[in-house]
């Protein structure tokens, strides 16, 4: 097996890359950091088990979501991507408040205009 044909996972794990390697479709050798990040948070064994339990056609999306969560956890070891959830919830509450406030102003404007008519 030509070592340069190994996927990023097998390169990282310093092993030969078999033809049916579960990682190779999703961790090309051109992006070594992707697997490094996932491995750091989840571990190769856990990722392999998770992918085996997912239909083949859904594995690409699963890998992307795992990579995203792993990257968030590396950048924010305390909150990971839960911090983003909290931020979005805050944003939702703020926007709902703004909508309610604008609705109230509309009501006042409509009331005032109906009084002057």
């Amino acid at each position, binding site marked *: 097996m030509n070592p340069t044909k190994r996927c990023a996972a097998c390169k990282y794990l310093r092993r030969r890359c078999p033809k049916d390697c579960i990682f190779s479709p999703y961790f090309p050798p051109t992006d070594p950091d992707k697997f490094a990040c996932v491995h*750091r*948070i*989840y*571990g190769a*064994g*856990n990722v392999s088990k*998770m992918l085996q*339990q*997912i239909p083949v056609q*859904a594995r690409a*999306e*699963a890998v*992307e*979501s*795992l990579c*995203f*969560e792993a*990257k*968030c*956890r590396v*950048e*924010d*070891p*305390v*909150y*990971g*991507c*839960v*911090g*983003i*959830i*909290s*931020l*979005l*919830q*805050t*944003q*939702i*509450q703020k*926007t*709902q*408040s*703004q*909508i*309610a*406030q*604008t*609705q*109230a*102003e*509309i*009501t*006042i*404007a*409509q*009331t005032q*205009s*109906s009084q002057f008519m």
Partner: protein
Amino acid sequence: MSCSGNPSSSGGGGGGGPCGACKFLRRKCVAGCIFAPYFDSEQGAAHFAAVHKVFGASNVSKLLQHVPEHKRPDAVISICFEAQARLRDPIYGCVAHIVSLQQQVVSLQTELSYVQAHLATLELPQPQPPQPQVSSSTSPPPLSISDLPTISPSVYDLSSIFEMGMSSTWTMQQQLRPSDHFFGVPSGSNMGGGGELQALAREFLQGGQVPAQPSPGTSGSASTVIKRE
């Protein structure tokens, strides 16, 4: 959530028996066990099972070791949340929740633009033609994982995450109607109680308070606002 955010003891291996993690791992819970403060021996084992299945005990141990001790309760809570989300949705995990919230934000911002434009027309000196209604079937553009943000805010309210009703937002196909987000003062089309409505609107604007809105799946847990140092 029983993976406790409050350290109840400094370590396991004492008279209280093994912590939930060591119980699950079937190993001796030593004094100073890194998991003991956060996984009690009763329900902690179940939560640790999820964490172990997704992250692995050694990975979580390493993660916690790199986190300051006063931040570890929050770290454990977020790790438990992610683990349970991943088990519930093996393909998208809590990314599905993020995408759903992002779609909600986009929808609300569209709604906000609409009502602000409506307000602007009312404040103009000359009457304007009626504005086109925003179709309730308009759905926000589909989002992909590459659109997800990577912002790090400084204040997190972790309790609200668990009150969001996780089961209702796990799918990527969630379509949110703009009318779902209207609350407080109703639209001015029904002017039967104009005086009361005006009083309510003025009270709202003067107080600057958001009218109470029941949150779905409220568990009754106290709000915990964690400031990030």
